[in-house]
């Protein structure tokens, strides 16, 4: 009982996400408008939110350093998108070369802002507010106010196609499920091997029944997810990209020394500095990295919209920041996880998608999202207070 309680407390947002999914599913079915978990719609939700997940991952690192946010990301995306448009649509440059150039441009923009923040000492809020205006302007200048479209198929296929590319529904479903099963098997093997290693070295491990329950739950979720995707077109390529980003950063924050330093910096900057950590370097890294992930998100976005517009990325910073805070990151820094931010991003995505299917007015959607953001954080703050008392 105690365990269940602590599990519930530790995973409030995950539970909230499940509740929201069930709620919308019920509402949508009741309204006779199909299903939230229809294979095609699940695929849609992924395509719609892939960029939010990528951005939220980067934003989390910034927030960890002390509740600092990056307001410029929407504009940086527009600038990188404009560069991509110029190079591919206008100049017909090689796709791989373009991707590399765009990633470099994003990283460079991030590094400029990061330098201002970490080494000159401009407060992040102001440095990135300036960036927000600056890079939006640059994007408009590059595009001369025009929209560049369409992108060639040899670019789009890396972002908008599906795997495995086949038209035979039975074969598609089978392969999708087999791939999922392989992923599950690898995952289980990895966990069991890790456990065996720990036992050998004499470290404490979680109990076997707990481990089995956890493994079965996670595998079941993966299989259901694969089944839904397999009934549509298979795995969207962008899902693979997003998964790689999420896994890499989750590992970085959990298991590496620089990742640990980020948390320490947000928890107590002075103590961290006095422990021999180059805190300025960490700050520089967090914001440079944000620029890099903006570039990744920009490449995804231009492919999804099949165009580069001056207004690309407008308001994305708020989605990313919202996702982090809904996902349990502290507004003072030092706490928050990549997993939490992903849940936060999906939460916002499901909310958007569900309300759209229900045909709720777009203006009301905004109001509801704003309300949910504040409510989620308030809930988190209050529940943490109770734990302390």
């Amino acid at each position, binding site marked *: 009982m105690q365990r269940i309680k602590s599990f519930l407390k530790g995973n409030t947002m995950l539970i909230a996400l499940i509740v929201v999914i069930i709620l919308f599913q019920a509402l949508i079915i009741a309204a006779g408008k199909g299903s939230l978990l229809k294979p095609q719609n699940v695929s849609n939700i992924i395509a719609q939110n892939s960029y939010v997940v990528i951005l939220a991952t980067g934003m989390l690192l910034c927030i960890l350093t002390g509740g600092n946010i990056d307001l410029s990301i929407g504009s940086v995306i527009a600038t990188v998108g404009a560069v991509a448009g110029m190079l591919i649509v206008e100049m017909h440059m090689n796709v791989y070369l373009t991707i590399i150039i765009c990633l470099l441009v994003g990283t460079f923009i991030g590094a400029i802002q990061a330098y201002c923040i970490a080494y000159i000492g401009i407060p992040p809020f102001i440095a990135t507010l300036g960036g927000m205006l600056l890079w939006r302007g640059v994007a408009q200048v590059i595009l001369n106010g025009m929209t560049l479209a369409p992108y060639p198929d040899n670019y789009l296929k890396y972002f908008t196609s599906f795997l495995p590319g086949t038209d035979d529904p039975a074969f598609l479903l089978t392969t999708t499920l087999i791939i999922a099963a392989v992923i599950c098997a690898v995952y289980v093997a990895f966990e069991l091997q890790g456990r065996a290693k720990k036992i050998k070295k004499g470290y404490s491990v979680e109990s076997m029944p707990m481990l089995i329950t956890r493994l079965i739950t996670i595998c079941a979720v993966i299989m259901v997810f694969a089944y839904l995707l397999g009934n549509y077109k298979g795995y969207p390529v962008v899902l693979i990209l997003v998964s790689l980003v999420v896994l890499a950063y989750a590992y970085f924050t959990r298991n*590496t020394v620089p990742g640990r330093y980020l948390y320490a910096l947000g928890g*107590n900057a002075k*103590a961290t500095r006095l422990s021999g950590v180059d805190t300025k370097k960490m700050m520089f890294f967090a914001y440079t990295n944000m620029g890099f992930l903006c570039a990744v998100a920009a490449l995804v976005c231009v492919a999804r919209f099949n165009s580069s517009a001056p207004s690309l990325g407008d308001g994305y910073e708020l989605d990313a920041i919202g996702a982090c805070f809904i996902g349990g990151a502290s507004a003072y820094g030092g706490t928050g996880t990549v997993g939490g931010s992903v849940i936060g991003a999906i939460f916002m995505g499901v909310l958007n998608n569900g309300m759209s299917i229900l045909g709720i007015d777009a203006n009301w959607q905004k109001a509801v999202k704003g309300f949910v953001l504040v409510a989620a954080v308030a809930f988190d703050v209050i529940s943490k207070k109770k734990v302390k008392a």
Partner: protein
Amino acid sequence: MAKTMLEMMNITKTFPGVKALDNVNLVVKEGEIHALVGENGAGKSTLMNVLSGIYPYGSYDGDIIYNGEVCRFKNIKDSELLGIVIIHQELALVPYLTIAENMFLGNERGKKYAIDWDETYKKADELLHTVGLQESSHTQIKDIAVGKQQLVEIAKALGKNVKLLILDEPTASLNEKDSRNLLELLLELKKNGLTSIMISHKLNEISYIADKITILRDGCTIETLVKGEDNINEDRIVKGMVGREISDRYPKRESKIGEVTMEACNWTVYHPLYSERKVCDNVNFNVRKGEVVGISGLMGSGRTELAMSIFGKSYGAKISGELFINGQKVSLNSVKQAINAKLAYVTEDRKGDGLILSSPIYKNNSLARMEKISNHSIIDKDKELLVAKEYKEKLNTKCPSVLQNVENLSGGNQQKVLLSKWMFADPDIMILDEPTRGIDVGAKYEIYCIINRLVAEGKSVVIISSELTEILGMSDRIFVMHEGRMIAEFDGHEASQEVIMSCIMRENNKMENENAKN
């Protein structure tokens, strides 16, 4: 016989793990200047915070009787209504507001939604005149010197119809001339019937100005000396302040002292903001293998600044001088370099500068030397946990598990986590800044035992402490620091509290005389 204005009876105040005040009594008569003296941590400021309502009624035991009535202050506002005003050591003025705005902050003239600025500035000018400050009340606080700011604080108190003025070290940051002015002003105000309580370390000022002197020691009232009845020269006061025996509160150790491990020569450090001010002035000191060296001195004497500037230049500007570790001249330009040179600095402010409170014990434990539990920057979490547990056992830290967040531990256990963090960094030389501040006697003893174990292992330990007994009880050698300079060195067995205290006081007087001459 003047009537009794204030009587504090049997005041007891406990903080988690420490008894800060233990049945303290204080009687203040109307129209007198009453001085409160005692070593750092004797409980002077705590007592005044109780009186002014900063620690509200209910958080302490005992009674405050003011003008014959029992008072139960819930906050500062309550005590100010009765005319009790406290001026803290760190002045509470807003730099970018004018003198007048500061003076009536929270006590605005006019109506709540319509401040009467004409009245404000007129009243402010009158009060400035009373305290003898020739400045326009339109001047911003940041533009006047600290001595004048102190006068503004007093004028502010007068603006609140103060009956009983409490001053916490009012002259600590003033030069001789400003201090003298301030003391004369207090005497002047006394003639007009103002009663004041003054906390001070400067005993010459106290014997000049005070009518009565109450001495606190370890949270207890020791005695009250009355001018005219008792002999109140400085030696007498010092004796009252320190007059306790060093009993077996300090574990014994066999000193096996070796070669010099660290030596600082002509170490000079300037203040990072006020680039003219020397914080450490030509300091020379050293520590040897297996030795505990104590650095004594008043607060603000530059001890912490000395330690931090040595520790990878983490404090100060324009640092000059030479540093030798094991005979080799080194220059440590970052904390990382200092740690790699096997140096550790354990901060006096464990919550502010030392620990990440919202983080679990094991993460705090490894922060200063992540290399030991990681491989190519990949953390071995299991090893990290195991090591943390090991240190927990070794230092006898009381906690349910090392996964516990540090903020939930008591002060003594937090201090142990901080110590273990730096022991984990494998230093040969450890500088411990106020290692037992704010922790109870039992935990102190354990910390002393840990220190003894460290030197037995051949490490060198430097203890910075405001508690003289601690310095005397633990050190093989003692340096005394004053106003950024090393003024004396003693053998640990030869020194006594009286010798050190009077050494500091003598230096105090000497400097004041020099200033007076200039």
